[in-house]
């Protein structure tokens, strides 16, 4: 599985405003829904999330629609720990493997470190920087190095003139553990620091 890639800021893109910078440390919150299969049955999960990404540690919280914490995932340099209410904490070196084992569906956290901000590595191994394209109505789509199809379907303009950032991100992939997985993410707030 992909390790936590430290990415450099990509080249400037001409699309609009100042080039969007990659932030190593950023807080993001929003909502997400996941569709996946579990022992042949269609499953769906809907909730919200907070994503506190720092240089040394990233803390992700998954919440129910009414705001109850369902799980927290702490990712340090070499170890990830996942806690669910009423269950003992689980730890593993690979956060993606840990998540699918505990939750039953894959949340590509390693990849999302870049994708949430509209960056990443495409199937050919090149860095991509997603940008709202006036032409295609479904925005920017790319297949990543680890076979996730990502579609940036809408964007959030920033009032300080900086380049807009992704507002809705759709992810899809056929996975061994959970069959056809479709994740939709909407970003409500974003605070680089």
């Amino acid at each position, binding site marked *: 599985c992909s390790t936590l890639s430290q990415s450099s800021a990509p080249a400037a893109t001409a699309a609009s405003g100042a080039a969007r910078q990659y932030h190593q440390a950023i807080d993001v*919150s929003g*909502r*997400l*829904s996941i*569709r996946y299969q579990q022992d042949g049955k*269609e*499953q*769906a*999960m*809907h909730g*919200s999330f*907070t994503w506190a990404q720092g240089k040394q540690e990233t803390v992700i*919280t998954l*919440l*129910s*629609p*009414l*705001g*109850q*914490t*369902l799980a*927290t995932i702490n990712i340090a340099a070499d170890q990830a720990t996942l*806690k669910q*209410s*009423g269950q003992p904490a689980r730890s593993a070196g690979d956060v993606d493997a840990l998540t699918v084992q505990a939750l039953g569906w894959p949340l590509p956290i390693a990849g999302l470190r870049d994708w949430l901000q509209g960056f990443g590595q495409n199937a050919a191994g090149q860095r991509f920087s997603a940008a709202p394209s006036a032409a295609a109505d479904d925005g920017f789509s790319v297949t990543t190095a680890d076979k996730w199809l990502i579609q940036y379907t809408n964007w959030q303009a920033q009032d300080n003139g900086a380049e807009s950032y992704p*507002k*809705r991100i759709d992810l899809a992939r056929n996975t061994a553990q959970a069959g056809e997985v479709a994740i*939709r993410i*909407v970003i*409500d707030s974003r605070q680089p620091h």
Partner: protein
Amino acid sequence: SALEQFKSFVSSTQSARGEFSQQLVKIDAGKAPKVTSTSSGIFIFARPGKFIWTYQKPYEQVLQADGDRLYIYDKDLNQVTTKSLGNALGSSPAAILFGSNDLEKNFILKEGQAKDGMEWLEATPKAKDTTFDHIGIGLKDGLPHAMELRDSFGQVSLLTFKNFVKNPPLSAGQFQFVVPKGADVLNQ
């Protein structure tokens, strides 16, 4: 007492509607409580198991139960997730307001401290696998004005209610869910 007020509320309220505001507060030992999100909206319910809980701000999201199935619609995600209600209400906070009224089946009820001008009822879920540990219901003049939901991660959800109308007139299809045009439906 809070228990008397709650029992009279439950027995005299077949349905109700009103407005709510919600604050999620993270309480970490040694740190000041931090409000992590604020939202508001409207609700309407009819016992047992029929309700529409609509978040209007900061985004549009509807949690609706027609007595048989639970629907969650999120406008930005353009998606409806639906599953059978079954005992999904069971020991969730929704059960307190919208569930059937034999609350003692799923909760241990006891009198709490009066505060903020309300008498408080403490409800602790009997089932251990719920996502939260403790519920407080603040009552005044026989109506719930606030609810405190504490989950096992130290996060508290504070709900306050306004314009609480008891037993309002309800239309025939009041709780029937209609899939918004163009929204994708995920059945579970």
